[in-house]
């Protein structure tokens, strides 16, 4: 054995590569030692590959300028894989959409993992690759991260926290913000409501549905960018995630000291989602969306905003669904298709099925 070969062998930090077929997460993968380094080098680094990560420092460094935006989101979805996405892509889209709702373009994201001992490496790789793809497709770099491992039974496979950083472009003179909603403004949504929530509920309960439903998980900054380029009348943007459309509108009314009236017939809901909701006894207006936005727009710009949304692939089903009203109680009312009225309240608890 020549000297060169021995040197090469002693140079090698890891005696065996990670087994992505049969291997599982062990406590050592989160201990900060050699096993942690191996997980980083053999999984995270190649997947997220970018100069900042490759620099090997404990932090990412970049020049700050303009109006910067930061948002964070933790993801604990169960099941981890569902029709239309998985916890990986969801964790990128979720945070990125919060950034986008300010009118900002997302640039960077972090990725913090809490893994459960015994979690299959094959699943982790699938999740990480899905995250990497979602980030690449969105033009976002994952530039910092962390991994901790908890004992078996103390987690649910994998939890992911992401923090995103974005910059509001100079041409967005008045960035959308919740407090800007005023009586008379028009409320739009970019598409059908409840797709993600129903998908998760059906997958979680193992309910066989007659027609397939997919999560709408998607990055919305492209849609936002087109919308803001088409009109300067956009006052508020919000992605109606947990709590659904109903809760998001209530939040916006509370923040801006207004009320709202919605027109039930104009709220886009897929027939399959509507049918599943009837079956499950839940209201689609309270179910999460992961690829839709609410836009509140000045009345004279409503048509331009609708046209801009409809022009984008993610906004084809966009619709005008109501108006902001003057109401000191902050009540959100709905005109039912039959000509009656009712309130649309905040989500209380979790959506639970009815008994009969």
């Amino acid at each position, binding site marked *: 054995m020549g000297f060169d070969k021995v040197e090469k062998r002693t140079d090698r930090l890891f005696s065996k590569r990670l087994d992505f077929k049969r291997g599982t997460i062990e406590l050592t993968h989160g201990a900060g030692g050699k096993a942690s380094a191996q997980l980083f080098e053999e999984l995270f680094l190649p997947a997220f590959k970018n100069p900042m990560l490759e620099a090997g420092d404990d932090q990412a460094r970049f020049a700050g300028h303009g109006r910067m935006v930061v948002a964070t989101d933790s993801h604990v979805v169960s099941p981890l894989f569902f029709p239309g996405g998985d916890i990986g892509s969801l964790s990128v889209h979720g945070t990125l959409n919060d950034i986008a709702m300010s009118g900002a373009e997302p640039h960077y994201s972090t990725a913090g993992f809490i893994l459960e001992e015994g979690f299959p490496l094959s699943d982790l790789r699938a999740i990480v690759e899905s995250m990497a793809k979602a980030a690449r497709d969105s033009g976002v770099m994952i530039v910092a991260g962390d991994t901790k491992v908890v004992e078996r039974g103390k987690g649910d496979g994998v939890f992911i926290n992401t923090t995103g950083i974005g910059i509001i472009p100079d041409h967005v003179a008045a960035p959308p913000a919740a407090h800007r909603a005023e009586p008379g403004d028009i409320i739009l949504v970019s598409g059908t409501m409840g797709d993600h929530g129903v998908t998760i509920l059906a997958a979680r309960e193992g309910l066989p549905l007659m027609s397939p439903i997919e999560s709408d998980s998607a990055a919305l900054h492209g849609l936002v960018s087109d919308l803001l380029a088409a009109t300067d009348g956009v006052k508020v943007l919000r992605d109606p995630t947990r709590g659904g459309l109903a809760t998001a509108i209530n939040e916006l009314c509370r923040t801006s000291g207004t009320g709202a009236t919605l027109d039930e017939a104009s709220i886009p809901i897929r027939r399959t989602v509507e049918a599943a909701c009837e079956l499950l006894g839940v209201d689609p207006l309270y179910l999460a969306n992961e690829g839709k936005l609410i836009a509140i727009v000045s009345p004279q710009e409503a048509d331009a905003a609708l046209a801009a949304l409809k022009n984008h692939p993610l906004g084809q089903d966009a619709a005008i669904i109501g108006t902001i009203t003057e109401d000191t109680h902050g009540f959100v009312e709905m005109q*039912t*298709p*039959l000509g009656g*009225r*009712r*309130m649309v309240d905040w989500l209380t*608890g979790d959506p639970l099925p009815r*008994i009969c």
Partner: protein
Amino acid sequence: MKYVDEFRDPDAAKAIAAQIASEVEPGRQYHFMEFCGGHTHALCRFGLEDLLPKTIRMIHGPGCPVCVLPVGRLDMAIALVQSRSDVILATYGDMMRVPGSGGRTLLSAKAAGGDVRMVYSTLQAVDLAKANPERDVVFFAIGFETTTPPTAAAIKAAKDAGLTNFSAFCNHVLTPSAIDAIMTTGTGETGARLDGFVGPGNVSTIIGAEAYEGAAHKWNKPIVISGFEPNDLLQSILLLVRQVNSSEARVENAFARAVRPGGNEAAQALCSDVFQVRESFEWRGLGSIPHSALEVSDRYAAFDAERKFAMEYVSRPDHKACACAQILRGEKRPSDCKVFAAGCTPEHPLGSCMVSPEGACAAHYLYGRFRDALPADLVAAE
């Protein structure tokens, strides 16, 4: 959605509403009770009261299983799951947040370490028992006649599978007894003032339209059995108006696509095999009513959680500020209760009417409370 859209058609709704408006007699007040919580929910959710003449008042009845379950029965379930670590309590989701004594709920019992699982069907509970042979699965059985056959089917399935670790905590109650109780208990004002009932829909698919003949005759009130879609309800209200106008008191079936005169005889036979009628049962708001509930029959005693775990019922008073009792009897409206929307909200319910979306208070809170804030002249109908 087929079989739904037809019954939510706005043009049909407006036509029936116009017909109702043209048939109500000037100067006459109509007080109808929709017995069933599903009807309460539909009335509020579709804003149907806006379509009715102001002289028709809908009174929300006690047909919400969660709402009429007395606190003491819930306490029994909470005590069981807290004291027995070998027990898995399987329950429908609605029960999770119902407050028992001291504000404790199944959700808080779960948080404290009790094994409470939410199920969508009784057979899921049987599957839990199969999958956990070393544990005892207790199904929290609750509901009117609609949910009774599924419980019976589960008990029978458990018996057929030779399971010894499955039992049901039976809280099934009977609708006709409750109608009697509304007419006689409390101040009796409701009974005197009521002009008719919108009869239960799902319950009637099991017990049949004929089951109400006795009540209609005895109390001389029309009963129109209704489906749960808005146009079902409007049509039923129209039929009630017609009967009142012509001083009739018949049972009419406006839910003929689902309800037969004699009901579902196979389900009835199954239930009388697995259950027997209790001597007496306490209802929240209505008090103890004789022969108003079911228990697991002696034949299936091994599947009766109450006997298996020697569960004891202790009657507990409601929260003293809570007006659930009068609301369930139709003597008060939700907004008449001092704690409505103040101390009692869906997040922190004091009384059971605020828990289930089918409860009178929760339905009004979620869908109708903006009306309470309107100037008085706009709510003349209330």
